[in-house]
């Protein structure tokens, strides 16, 4: 890992290259992200790599404030975006940067991209969001688990039994109808992930498939970071379908 950010120097950050790695798994709720992160961590540890996992809104600095703000629904777009940025910066400096510095792999269950997509969907400009998070450490690999809205919907309902207010973007007042709002909001998010995919070199993985198939593809993307070409502990049985194979080649070229 180079230890470089997306442009803004972090005061007090080590300038030496960091020996560890930063791997990001991005994707909407229901894309199978958390399942994949768990599987990936397990596999990397079996392979002998130290792994620190991190996600969004896990720092205790402002999580209370974020919860409170969500209860009240009163914060403006810029305020909400900045509150999430404080939380991310806190995790970045206290958890993400120190771990690769100590040689570990940081496995991030979502990263700045989700925060940027949410902020932009709520009215921030792309340029502002990109610059706001320019202090983020540049990952060694960003895996984007791409799944259709219909599939996300079914997974969300089967998991929670209902549609979440925030994941449906109800605070945006796109529609009073929760079901319709979910689709409109997911469309907005995927539009943002679309340009970010090009801008930040996402490696797309077809996440409409079963978790085992997704995992095989992710392993193929991750293995080269450790100097391996194929995973030595394969866990998927079925080879990926040809359609997704084509997609994968297109994404990684």
């Amino acid at each position, binding site marked *: 890992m180079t230890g470089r950010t997306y442009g803004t120097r972090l005061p007090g950050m080590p300038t030496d290259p960091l020996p560890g790695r930063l791997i990001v798994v991005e994707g909407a709720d229901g894309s199978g992200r958390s399942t994949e992160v768990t599987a990936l961590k397990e596999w990397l540890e079996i392979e002998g790599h130290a792994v620190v996992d991190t996600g969004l809104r896990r720092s*205790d600095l402002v999580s209370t404030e974020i919860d409170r703000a969500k209860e009240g629904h009163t914060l*403006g777009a810029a305020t909400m975006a900045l509150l999430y940025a404080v939380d991310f910066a806190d995790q970045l400096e206290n958890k993400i940067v120190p771990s690769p510095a100590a040689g570990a792999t940081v496995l991030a269950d979502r990263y700045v991209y989700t925060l940027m997509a949410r902020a932009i969907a709520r009215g921030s400009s792309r340029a502002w969001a990109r610059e706001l998070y320019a202090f983020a450490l540049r990952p060694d690999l960003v895996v984007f688990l791409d799944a259709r809205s219909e599939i996300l919907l079914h997974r969300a309902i089967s998991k929670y039994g209902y549609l979440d207010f925030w994941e449906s973007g109800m605070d945006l007042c796109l529609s009073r109808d929760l079901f319709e709002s979910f689709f409109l909001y997911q469309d907005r998010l995927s539009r943002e992930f679309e340009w970010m995919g090009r801008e930040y070199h996402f490696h797309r993985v077809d996440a409409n498939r079963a978790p085992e198939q997704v995992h095989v593809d992710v392993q193929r993307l991750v293995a080269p970071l450790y100097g391996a070409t194929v995973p030595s502990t394969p866990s998927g049985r079925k080879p990926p379908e040809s359609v997704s194979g084509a997609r994968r080649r297109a994404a990684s070229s």
Partner: protein
Amino acid sequence: MPETPSPNHGFPGRLLVFEGLDGSGKSTQAALLGKWLAAQGYRVFFTEWNSSELVANVIRRGKKKGLLTPTTFSLLHATDFADRFERKILPPLRAGYLVVCDRYAHTAFVRDAARGCDPGWVRTIYSFAPRPDRAFYFRVPVSITLRRKLASRLKISYYEAGMDLGLSDDVVESYQKFQGRLKREYDRIAATDRFTIIDSTRTVEEIQGDLRASLRPLLENFPTGADMMHDG
């Protein structure tokens, strides 16, 4: 009476900003000016950059754990400012008020720069905040602000003294050094941010007289409250 939009932000209100070091006399002057404007019948909204409960709580928590860095400190204050801007400054500005700000985004520009944050990054973060119609910079030597501070017997706070930067173990010495950095930053951005520089070593009355005189052109044809509340 028609309300002409400001060329800076396009809203009918006007944004008047008071900037300068702690103890530069800007708060006294801003309060006096607000009184005078209101007495003339203008609709005035006065706001100061006091840390909100949100920020105060987080800073207390962060300090206890030693977690706050220049970056989180900067973003935390930006959050606080955004909240104040979106909820308190913007509505009266759109409604056509004279909005008087005791400290504005420039306070963040100088503080964050003094803490080593990338100035370009900080500027972009605050780009949701429009350029003021008038920004007064109360310029005063650090030695005078320190004398005022010590005479007031108010305790110098940890962050006010920039103790987090490790400039000195002595609070007074750290305060002098840190405030010196802030002053250099204010001086550096004075021209580009089109500050009206106020020599703050003069008497309160002299300064207030200057402020009022310098605002007369801006207030010409600006509607008073009565103009807006009812016709004729």
